[in-house]
């Protein structure tokens, strides 16, 4: 299968090991991976802060870039940016652009969902020694309905033991929320501290998630609190070999 990687600007610049891991796993499973270097940001920061014209311009670009690709699927190591592409049609009044947006959205998949539903794979042949817990990133969970997919993949990782987060639980927001994290940092960190407390109570070696944004938030606080728990992207764990 031909896959075009939708890398996302955050993974590209801040968490490239997630994107490299995704490429590695996809190739291991027999996919031919392409990457179009014209892609930058999907426009989500602008859309979520209210800057619709900027978001629309970036949406048009990404739609054109992926329309030009003959790949069977567009795959991203981010639930949040995938969800943004799935929301693109809301940005347009013009019916033609809405249709084009929907066309690209239909081909765009978040990584774990792509592996489980499109490739029909749960065991990607990864090996990782340690106790892991999963943090559900909100947009993957609630906009895309991804809940079991990453857990199924992680349960098949050799040597890894997956435990659920104690209350407030895996599904509670980490407090990132894009510009929310700097507009209202105290609220953001109060939410984050509940998450980090739960991660520490879980007694894990690493917290794993599907979005570099949540991972930045969680890792930033773990390290500030002097914790030894690592924050890893799902693709990094899935790319680990013995």
């Amino acid at each position, binding site marked *: 299968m031909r896959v075009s990687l939708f*890398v996302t600007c955050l993974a590209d*610049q*801040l*968490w*490239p*090991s997630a*994107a*490299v891991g995704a490429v590695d796993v*996809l*190739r*291991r*499973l*027999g*996919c*031919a991976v392409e*990457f179009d*270097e*014209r892609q*930058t*940001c999907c*426009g989500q*920061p*602008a*859309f*979520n*802060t*209210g*800057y*619709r014209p*900027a978001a629309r*311009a970036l949406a048009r670009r990404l739609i054109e870039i992926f329309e030009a690709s003959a790949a069977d699927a567009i795959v991203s190591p981010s639930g949040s940016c995938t969800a943004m592409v799935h929301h693109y049609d809301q940005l347009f009044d013009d019916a033609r652009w809405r249709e084009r947006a929907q066309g690209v959205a239909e081909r765009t998949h978040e990584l774990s969902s792509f592996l489980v539903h499109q490739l029909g794979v749960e065991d990607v042949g990864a090996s990782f020694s340690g106790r892991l817990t999963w943090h559900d990133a*909100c947009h993957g*969970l*609630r906009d895309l309905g991804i809940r079991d997919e990453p857990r199924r993949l992680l349960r098949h990782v050799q040597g890894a033991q997956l435990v659920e987060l104690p*209350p407030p639980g895996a599904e*509670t*927001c980490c*407090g*990132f*929320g894009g*510009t*929310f*994290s*700097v*507009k*209202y*940092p*105290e*609220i*953001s*960190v*109060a*939410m984050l501290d509940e998450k980090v407390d739960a991660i520490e109570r879980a007694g894990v070696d690493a917290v794993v998630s599907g979005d570099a944004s949540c991972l*930045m*938030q969680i*890792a*930033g*606080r773990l*390290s*500030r609190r002097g914790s030894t728990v690592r924050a890893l992207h799902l693709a990094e764990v899935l790319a680990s070999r013995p």
Partner: protein
Amino acid sequence: MTFERDARTALADGQLRGALRQATTLFGERRRAALATVPDWEGARDRARAIKDETLEHLDRYLEEFAANAERAGACVHWARDAAAACDIIGGIAERRGARTVVKSKSMASEEIHLNAALARRGIEAVETDLGEYIVQLAGETPSHIVVPAIHKTKAQIAALFADKLGIAPSDDVATLAAAARDALRRRFAEADLGISGVNFAVAETGTILILENEGNARMTTSLPHTHVALMGIEKVIPRFADLDVFLQLLPRSGTGQVLTAYQSLITGTKRRAEDEGPEELHIVLLDNGRSRMLASRVTRQALACIRCGACLNACPVYRQIGGHAYGSVYPGPIGAVLSPQLFGLARSAALPYASSLCGACRDVCPVKIDIPALLLHLRAQVVAEGVAVGKGHLRERLAFWIYATVMVRPRLFAWLMRAVRSLRIMPPLGAWTKWRDLRPLAPRSFREQWRAGLGDQRGPDA
């Protein structure tokens, strides 16, 4: 806008946060247990929303039908364009009755129009009879939750308040505290000249109003005094009596996690025979106060489907940290953040649409499937388009997004700029981040650089 300051104050209040955590967790658990008793919860949500959508589509027609049927049953219906008009109508009724004291059961609409203060200006004392509202009134505060007004208070704080205001011996026994309130309130019921209530649902085809409650105080408010005034937002109307079925499945379960509230008062007009219960005079005040403006678009209209269950407040991780008062509006939490700017003006509440991480937990629990995140985004776009200033960083934010928009449509400029930032080790001015969190530095080599340097040439094992 004081949201930022008030949120900070709330975060520093350990008692408040403890009370909030305990109560919202409990309501969340009870709600989940109660949902399990409905065989098709999703179907019920869809049916309820469809009924609300149909009603809002033809709101004028259903309101006229409701008013005609309520008047046929003996009620007097009043139309109030805004808060001042509603206060005048109710104040006028109270004065005509020569009322000195009025008893009130829970009504968020009355909080919205600041009715108690308006009555006080006419020399009329309004006594809240819902226990939570009574606590808040005794403390000289405002409700911090639309269903649980005193959710921000601990038992110990309430014990101290009652000892101070009611002169009882300090006690942290809930039954003792409730008995003290009941005792004080019974006397106020006996002397009241007028009863004021809210409305949960108003049935167009019969002219009936339905009030849900757990303490019996609304039953007394609407039946003991000679005159009953019911205040309702115009969005409370539903077409048919049979529609109540689905809403009664959804509201108590979503609100308090109850299968049904302890009391459901269905009131159709005034009492007809001397031995009947109910008021001799019934006034129903239909309040617009900005609601008809929201009808204009499909996106904004959906907030009028709200049945005020409060589930989104309990589920919201932001509300759970800061409580209701920080929102600076009678309607706090996620639904408040979309209602307040629309009802009371964007400029006054421009910070509220941003008081959310857009996690979507509110949308998941909403019994009528209001897409609150989409509404928050809609309002944020309006804030930016109208140039409303939010906080100090307003101009800096505009500049940042201008730069962002300029760079992100130019991939080569983007790649060059990021390389420059990386090699010159430029730290972005993100004190708001770094005060509490370590900032992840840019990776030594971006993905696109690694792709160019050979990653892109490698092939998968099967390719």
